[in-house]
């Protein structure tokens, strides 16, 4: 599968994302934010970092980059788009995912492994994740607190669009397990159609066990599974 990894000024997880895809046997390439075409991409990854220095608000400027129109068209045609950390922030600013990411409640930058409970296994991003497996994936963010109004949260819950939540080792959604104050311990969500997802943790930094966990591979494998089913 071909992964297109976007690259904005000050993205810093773009190389990691390209590497993760290749380690899992896929091809991947960087797409500079000024490009207006995604080429023959089968899936798009919007990587982590501090695009545009997080000026104004995280992701607020990147969402207007020329490449984002191509991403929007790709998503409108059913293409799979995965936003990681700053990528999640950019998707929210672009209105491709609801809600917003704000400053961590304790005002600290959190750089640590977290545990994630997967809520829905019928999505392109979660279908290959072993049931009952708590994913160990690192986070590295200062503005990862997910916020949305009550109505939005109800919609996300009702439509099973909260894909991942911060949990403890038993899979319980506790306050202690929540590193940033996200409402409902939300770590990642999908759009209504189910083809666009965003999460604050970094699965691309957890695809090789030497990095402390290789649980991130399940998310990329889920995407690859759906894509290979489509081409059959």
């Amino acid at each position, binding site marked *: 599968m071909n992964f297109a990894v976007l690259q904005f000024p000050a993205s810093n997880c773009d190389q990691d994302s390209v590497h993760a895809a290749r380690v899992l046997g896929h091809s991947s390439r960087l797409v500079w934010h000024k490009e207006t075409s995604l080429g023959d991409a089968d899936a798009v990854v919007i990587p982590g970092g501090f695009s545009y220095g997080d000026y104004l608000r995280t992701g607020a400027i990147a969402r207007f980059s020329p490449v984002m129109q191509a991403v929007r068209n790709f998503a409108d045609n059913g293409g799979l788009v995965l936003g990681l950390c700053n990528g999640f922030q950019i998707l929210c600013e672009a209105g491709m995912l609801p809600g917003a990411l704000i*400053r961590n409640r304790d005002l600290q930058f959190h750089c640590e492994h977290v545990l994630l409970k997967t809520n829905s296994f019928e999505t392109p991003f979660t279908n290959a994740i072993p049931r009952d497996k708590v994913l160990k994936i690192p986070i590295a963010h200062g503005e990862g607190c997910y916020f949305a*109004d009550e109505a939005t949260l109800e919609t996300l819950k009702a439509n099973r669009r909260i894909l991942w939540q911060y949990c403890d080792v038993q899979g319980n959604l506790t306050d202690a397990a929540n590193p940033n*104050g996200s409402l409902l311990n939300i770590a990642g969500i999908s759009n209504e159609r189910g083809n666009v997802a965003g999460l604050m943790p970094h699965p691309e930094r957890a695809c090789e066990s030497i990095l402390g966990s290789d649980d991130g591979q399940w998310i990329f494998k889920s995407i690859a599974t759906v894509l290979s089913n489509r081409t059959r």
Partner: protein
Amino acid sequence: MKAKIIVTPKKAVVDPQGKTIQNALEHMGYRGVKAVHVGKYLEVELDGGDKESARKSLDEACHKFLSNPVIEDYKLEIAD
């Protein structure tokens, strides 16, 4: 012409910066501080022209870009 824009977090949004500053003010001995909210102030200098159409464009810019309506409110003022 100069536009003055104040962007503040919506009341429903947790404002840990505001809370931290409030605590610090209390520790410093300032009494009676009910709440602190931290926002952003932007100044946009404009070429001369029609004040009303400037306000209309900037209002759109505030809504679409300079603030995030999910988490922020804004106040726009145009001065000569």
